[in-house]
């Protein structure tokens, strides 16, 4: 047989992933936890548990989702270059039966990886950072057994390995390279001329060479051509020579070494050392800032319009929460904009705590106290720049996704504005990333670069190739930034940069910012505003510098228009918004005076003379005659019809009957007012009036609207008291716990202590633990299911529970019978064939990349994601009686790697535990294949039947 499988490297007293972690310094561990915060919550109790968790599929997926393209290439290259894993086909054969490469040849040092990637000199430092980052976040580890001795030594070249579990996540063909199979051809490649009948690669005939070239860059699997064809002959010859390997009846594969040789020793076509340089139009800085200022003023104006509109007429909530389409349209019309941007304004106002649900029945949206203060606080209230800062800070922390408004969710229901299900935890992080891309766009002398959505997406795709953000979200965020004036003409404005500086550090560090409590933004802004008005608030100052100067004048013209040749001051704006209709806005404001607008001003209590005087004062030119005429004429007609409210009226046929009533002091409490000689109005209601008049001796009668006399008893009107509307409700949601940075150092210290303790534990203790567990399980009815409530996870004090891809509330608020280890099977995902291994992780949120899925999707039908996450969140503390599933898996993986034996505790069909010594071969798709040396048989067990695993240490009893 020409092909044999390469053997695992002879396990030099093997060093494991866990050993690598254990030997890391405390600082390194803290850095690891910082880079992968999910490892620390809830706190692992031992370092082994930490290692297990770090190699769990969920955590690995999550870490990879944040990995940039270069690091990913490094990982793939390391995986491709690493010595082969134990392969199950190789069952039963003793280790070392075939010629293995000398250990020296398989040292995967950074230099080897760099050469394989083809990293240029310029990018060497970037490459170094990528390797360091991968090591730091435990995606790579150092398998050099000598490492601990020289770990800190200068010039130490680590022997890189990918973290266990990473191979599964990255799929069977890392970088599109085939299996590491040894064949005649690979041997020939190692030592030219050593294998008879194998031509050197360069001398492979053209037809056959084409076959190899087609497979060279992956996928390395080809379908066998039809028998008898020339192509088939070529393939058959290649198989004979060992350039191809038959994988099954219909397919051939390109062995890894051949693939590498065909690629010229490289693992990738070219190193993705730097993000793609985004291309965009160049825009002058002044233009960007001017555009941003215009947008900023516009958003402030729109919010003001919204608050004014809802002060007058609060908008009702839909039953499912959110605002109806009709109300959205109404607001959009008032703002003179389209629905999409109006929806954003509403979301923004709500996020900033300026409007809120009033909690009445039925509930409505009304401006909050801070909203009213924001709108027209006592002079000197916040100016435009300060108001804008409130909005933009609220936006920076917002988790809302307004771009989804109007689309349908998976149940087909329309997503409404302000609906509660528009929150996505990843929004702040993506926002920071998008702004970061804008901020780092090349800046050619004084000109900014305006980027399109696709340009931004390209860069983001480089930084997180495993979790490319949906274009729609990027587009939505860019649109929001433009509406807010964080960008101008598509480039980040000075004010936007100031904002990014403010939020940048926390969000880009990778940690999900703690949920921003409603109203927090304006509270903090109010604090800032109170103490620091005029002092250095960089965001406010940056915008203020960009705003055009205020103008106090309005040019009044004969065609009843007025023009403010610049940005009107607040007082002027207020005057004009009352007395005139706006026709055009922008650098200047054009208004038109109409009878309606003047009436509006008169309704606010202004008199014609006041208004004219005020306008004259602000106009550099004399008041045009038509305007003066309009104001006077409107004032003349204003109030020609007067309306008041009365509780009841009193009419008589003769004026004499009513004479003296309104002046009678005994009837003063009725509030009588004479409207006409024979009509009086009263403040009191009809019945009270009737009774009072009867008491005075007037024979009055009650009448209906039609004039018929009514029976007093039946006529007594029910006195409905209007429900008082507490118009101003502060956003009353309970603020989430204030986050503080988790104390990773303390955690590492406790891990270290536990680790030392564990290592001291002797085997007796281990057995005792196993026995105790058996006893407990037998007592529980030999069932795995444990209905007694689990002791609550005890996170370190002050450590927040960050929400994962789904709300943690899901798991903690609905306690359900907990399955100890049985969720392992689910955790592993549905059974997948090796070919689709890399995609199985995504099955949780169909169609969307990990991390950007719709949490509700996971909640609904796909148990994989929910269970996978639940596993992470409801991590049980390690200790007596339980073993973390991931721990078990980690031990199994190590054993597979080393070809070592382990003690596995299996649960039979009847639920009875059974302890067997096995040599695990393969762990895949929720199944473990292992050899039982005692019975000399191979067995396959579902992972959920494994109750526990212990390393086979000398002396462990059978």
């Amino acid at each position, binding site marked *: 047989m020409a092909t044999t499988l390469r053997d695992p490297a002879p396990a030099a007293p093997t060093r494991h992933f866990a050993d690598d972690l254990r030997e890391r310094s405390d600082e390194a561990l803290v850095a690891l936890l910082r880079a992968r915060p999910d490892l620390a919550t809830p706190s692992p109790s031992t370092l082994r548990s930490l290692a297990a968790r770090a190699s769990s599929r969920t955590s690995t997926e999550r870490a990879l989702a944040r990995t940039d393209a270069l690091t990913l290439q490094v990982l793939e290259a390391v995986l491709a270059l690493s010595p082969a894993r134990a392969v199950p086909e190789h069952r039963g054969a003793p280790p070392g039966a075939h010629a293995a490469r000398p250990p020296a040849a398989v040292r995967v040092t950074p230099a080897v990886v760099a050469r394989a990637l083809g990293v240029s000199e310029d990018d060497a430092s970037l490459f170094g950072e990528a390797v360091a980052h991968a090591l730091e976040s435990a995606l790579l580890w150092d398998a050099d057994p000598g490492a601990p001795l020289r770990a800190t030594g200068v010039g130490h070249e680590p022997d890189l390995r990918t973290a266990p579990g990473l191979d599964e996540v990255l799929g069977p063909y890392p970088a599109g390279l085939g299996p590491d199979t040894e064949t005649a051809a690979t041997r020939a490649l190692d030592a030219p001329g050593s294998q008879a009948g194998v031509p050197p690669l360069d001398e492979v005939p053209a037809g056959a060479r084409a076959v190899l070239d087609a497979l060279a860059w992956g996928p390395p699997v080809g379908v066998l051509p039809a028998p008898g064809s020339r192509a088939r002959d070529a393939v058959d010859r290649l198989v004979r020579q060992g350039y191809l390997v038959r994988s099954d009846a219909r397919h051939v594969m390109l062995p890894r070494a051949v693939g590498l040789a065909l690629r010229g020793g490289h693992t990738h076509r070219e190193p993705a050392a730097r993000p793609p340089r985004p291309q965009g139009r160049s825009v002058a800085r002044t233009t960007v800032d001017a*555009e941003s200022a215009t947008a900023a003023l516009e958003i402030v104006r729109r919010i003001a319009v919204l608050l004014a509109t809802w002060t007058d007429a609060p908008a009702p909530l839909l039953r499912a929460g959110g605002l109806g389409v009709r109300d959205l349209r109404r607001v959009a019309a008032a703002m003179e904009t389209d629905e999409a941007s109006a929806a954003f304004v509403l979301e923004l106002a709500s996020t900033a705590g300026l409007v809120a649900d009033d909690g009445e029945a039925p509930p409505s949206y009304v401006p909050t106290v801070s909203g009213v203060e924001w709108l027209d606080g006592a002079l000197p209230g916040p100016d435009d720049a300060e108001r804008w800062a409130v909005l933009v800070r609220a936006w920076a922390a917002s988790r809302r996704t307004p771009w989804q408004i109007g689309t349908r969710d998976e149940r087909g229901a329309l997503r409404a504005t302000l609906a509660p299900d528009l929150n996505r935890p990843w929004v702040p992080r993506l926002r920071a990333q998008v702004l970061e891309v804008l901020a780092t766009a090349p800046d050619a002398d004084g000109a900014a670069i305006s980027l399109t959505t696709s340009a931004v997406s390209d860069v983001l795709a480089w930084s997180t190739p495993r979790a490319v953000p949906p274009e729609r979200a990027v587009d939505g965020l860019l649109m929001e930034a433009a509406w807010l004036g964080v960008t101008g003409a598509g480039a980040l404005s000075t004010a936007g940069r100031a904002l990014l500086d403010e939020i940048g550090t926390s969000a880009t560090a990778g940690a999900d910012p703690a949920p921003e409590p409603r109203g927090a933004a304006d509270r903090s802004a109010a604090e800032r505003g109170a103490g620091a008005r005029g002092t250095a608030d960089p965001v406010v100052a940056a915008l203020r510098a960009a705003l055009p100067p205020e103008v106090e004048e309005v*040019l009044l013209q004969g065609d009843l228009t007025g023009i403010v040749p610049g940005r009107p001051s607040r007082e002027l704006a207020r005057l004009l918004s009352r007395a005139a209709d706006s026709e055009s806005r*922008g650098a200047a404001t054009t208004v038109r005076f109409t009878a309606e607008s003047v009436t509006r001003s008169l309704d606010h209590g202004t008199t014609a003379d006041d208004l004219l005087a005020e306008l004259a004062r602000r106009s550099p030119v004399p008041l*045009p005659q*038509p305007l003066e005429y309009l104001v006077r004429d409107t004032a003349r007609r204003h109030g020609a019809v007067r309306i008041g409210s009365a509780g009841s009226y009193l009419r008589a046929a003769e004026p004499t009957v009513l004479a003296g009533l309104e002046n009678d002091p005994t009837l003063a409490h009725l509030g009588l007012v004479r409207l006409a000689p024979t009509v009086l109005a009263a403040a009191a209601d009809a019945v009270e009036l009737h009774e009072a008049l009867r008491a005075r001796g007037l024979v009055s009668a009650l009448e209906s609207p039609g004039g018929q006399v009514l029976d007093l008893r039946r006529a007594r009107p029910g006195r409905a008291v209007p429900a008082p509307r507490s118009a101003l409700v502060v956003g009353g949601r309970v603020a989430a716990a204030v986050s503080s940075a988790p104390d990773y150092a303390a955690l590492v210290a406790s891990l270290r202590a536990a680790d030392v303790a564990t290592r001291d534990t002797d085997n007796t203790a281990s057995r005792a633990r196993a026995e105790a567990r058996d006893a407990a399980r037998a007592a529980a009815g030999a069932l795995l299911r444990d209905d007694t409530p689990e002791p609550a996870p005890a996170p370190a004090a002050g450590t927040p529970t960050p929400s994962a891809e789904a709300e943690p509330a899901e798991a903690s608020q609905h306690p359900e019978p907990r399955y100890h280890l049985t969720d392992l099977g689910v955790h592993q995902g549905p059974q997948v064939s090796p070919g689709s291994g890399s995609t199985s992780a995504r099955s949780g949120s169909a169609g969307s990349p990990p991390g950007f899925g719709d949490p509700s999707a996971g909640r609904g039908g796909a148990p994989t994601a929910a269970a996978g996450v639940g596993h992470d969140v409801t991590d049980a503390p390690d200790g007596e009686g339980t073993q973390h599933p991931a721990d078990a898996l980690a031990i199994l993986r190590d054993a597979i790697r080393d070809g070592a034996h382990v003690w596995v505790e299996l649960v039979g069909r009847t639920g009875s535990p059974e302890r067997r010594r096995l040599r695990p071969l393969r762990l895949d798709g929720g199944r473990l294949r292992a050899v039982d040396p005692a019975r000399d048989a191979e067995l396959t067990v579902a992972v959920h039947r494994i109750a526990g695993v212990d390393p086979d240490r000398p002396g462990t009893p059978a």
Partner: protein
Amino acid sequence: MTDGPLIVQSDKTLLLEVDHPRAGEARRAIAPFAELERAPEHMHTYRLTPLGLWNARAAGHDAEQVVDTLIEFSRYPVPHALLVDVAETMSRYGRLQLASDPVHGLVLTATDRAVLAEVLKSKRTAGLVGARLDDLTVVVHPSERGHLKQVLVKLGWPAEDLAGYVDGEKHPIELSPTVPGRAPGEPSRPWEMRPYQEHAVDGFWHGGSGVVVLPCGAGKTIVGAGAMAKSGTTTLILVTNTVSARQWRDELVRRTSLTEEEIGEYSGARKEIKPVTIATYQVLTTKRKGVYTHLELLDARDWGLVVYDEVHLLPAPIFRMTADLQARRRLGLTATLVREDGREDEVFSLIGPKRYDAPWKDIEAQGYIAPADCVEVRLTLPESERMVYATAEPEDKYRLAASATGKKRVVEQIVAQHPDDQILVIGQYLDQLQELSDHLDAPLITGATTVRERQRLFEAFRSGEISRLVVSKVANFSIDLPEASVAIQVSGSFGSRQEEAQRLGRVMRPKQDGRTAHFYAVVARDTVDQDFAAHRQRFLAEQGYAYRIVDAEDLDAAEAA
């Protein structure tokens, strides 16, 4: 940030500060591409429209020039999106061109394959184009040249018409160096075209076809004559009505080498076809048994030039006929491109882009049209009429308010204040006009008056024989009454802006003594009359004519002041 006179708004309006030292410069710079929307006393408003930008492209301006102009004169940074949009819009013009191919005849060529594909995919172009010659060229049926242009404008890809024109039948026409006196025996005096008229003719001729916009009384007829002289071919002139046709004829005889025999009138009364033929819209749009019976006129001769008077009034059927006349030069004349029916784009596609435009106030400042004083007189209705008005059906309200009896007295007062002026009283409702005519003892001209009688009365008015004339809307257009210096409008066609402009135009011919013209609009206060009046006045107010408002009761005082 310069201290320019221009403020560019993101809604594509441009505000021009008139009193700024560089205002004149800025106005000249933006005139080619921005349309004047309002010209009140301090800040003029211009608007950038696709049609305006395409007009500019047609006149040879490019986007860079437009953008540079905006940036140069703008006081504040110009909105970026606007600049992008300007460049984008302007680049759309001329991507498609109508050209003459020596082999295939009329073809539509594109400089951009995608544009041609997009246009051809549209349902609207189906049937207008023929075989596709290659990626960039498609055959156009010569008869569909106009329709295609219309459709392309609607699709947002206006085609540049480079297919040229037929030369037409030659017929020498020259401008005469002198103009004979009006009265018999009066000596001829030399004349020449005013500078702006020459510019207008040149602009038109250079562009091939298009529209010249000049205020009423600024001598549009002479621009027409100038264009005819330049063309030197047989000419078809389309005018609004018969009286106007006769005035055209008279003016052409006086100002050009044409004789009465060379000019034919094609109207309801006469059907002459001569080298120069003047036809009315009405006769062309007359239908008999569902067909236009006079269409053959359009093909009666090989016309080298077609002149459309008062383009803003072109009725829809004429548009359709014009669509078939695309191979001939077309000149549109108007005082305003504002159409109450919003068909400006058809004027653009079928007659041609705007070739010349001058603000009224400019021409007035040059002394070519009389300065005018516009006054709105507000009349308070007596109680009884207000009651009737308040309870009337909505459709009757305007008529009731417009023909309020009190207006009679107001007119009387105004007439009394202008004893030495030639006065026109203009109105909408015949019974009201009849009453006024009786009351003022002035002759009445309505649609029912015979053409001969009308001409007699107009001639008498011109000569000063009669000093007052009551006219209905027949006198809205194209009636040359140079000596009228006071117009009193008692009622109008609801809120028609162009009617108001036309009526003002009646009194705007320059007066020999340079006196100011007066335009009075009498409206009933607190009624729809007042609202319509406000709407009508918008165009003039935008052109810089500020209306004073005077209460009827204060009329004497106001005039004395």
